[in-house]
């Protein structure tokens, strides 16, 4: 998958991972599709940004005698996910245009091209 496309999808995939319930960094990476190639170092700025703009909130909980940071989806986070889903109609329109053009490509490719 194109890196720019991945970049756009990762945020929403992280939000989707939190939609099932509060989660922590390592769990979020495991819950996101491997095709997004989300790493430990790429997750941090995403979570930080979403925490700053209020899409996720955080709290600490003790786990096996150590503090672990949990992330929770906020109302703004849910709204952001819904907006992404509704915007997908527009993405599909563009996709169909590209798909139709791609289907025409073998016919366009001739000896003079």
């Amino acid at each position, binding site marked *: 998958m194109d890196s720019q496309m991945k970049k756009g999808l990762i945020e929403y995939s992280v939000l989707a991972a939190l939609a099932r319930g509060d989660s*922590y*960094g*390592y*769990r979020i990476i495991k819950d996101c599709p491997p095709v997004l190639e989300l*790493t*430990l*170092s790429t997750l*941090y*700025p995403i979570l*930080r940004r979403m925490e700053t703009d209020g899409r996720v909130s955080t709290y600490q909980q003790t786990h*096996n005698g*150590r*503090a*672990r*940071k949990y992330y929770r989806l906020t109302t703004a986070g849910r709204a952001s996910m819904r907006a992404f889903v509704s915007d997908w109609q527009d993405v599909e329109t563009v996709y169909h245009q590209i798909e139709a053009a791609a289907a025409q490509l073998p016919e366009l490719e001739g000896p003079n091209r």
Partner: protein
Amino acid sequence: MTRQDFLLRLRSGLAGNVPAEEAARLVDYYDEMILDLMEDGRSEADAVAQVGDPNDLVYAAAGTRPLPAPSPTSTLTRRRWRWTLLILGAPLWGSLLLAAACILLSADLILWCVPLTGAGVSFGFLLGGAISVIASPLAVSGAWALALVELGAGFILLGLGMIVVWLTVQITRICWRGHRALFQWGLAQLGRSKAVIA
């Protein structure tokens, strides 16, 4: 690298490059990740290796942290200061830059020595072979055996020359790739963001 070593290097690298609060958050984040990886069955060394090089994490953190918008006056003053320091420090950074450029150039010259030698050897073989083949009929008047030896030696030299030409072409391709990689790496160093790592 142990978890403690990793955290120490990360903490030292972040100090002064990102605000203290952000540095503490980053250290806690990566510490939690290492512990989670270990809890998932990884060894300490594996977990630390998967998190990555602390220097790279420092570069990334220093390069992406949001900076407060500077006022126009402070920007001008900072620019003047930067130029002043740049000029005053020229004897130090200038000589280091010159030395680095010379090292890069030397490495490149060493790289090109191999195809250059190949070209010289193949030219010698081909020239020697051609002269030997052309001159062999002249020796016929003296002795048939001598002419035959000269003709044979000429063909051997021509054959060797062609083999060396082929080898030189292959080596030149590799050297060209090495040359490009060397200079791309050199240019990338100029554009790379810097952070002081303890």
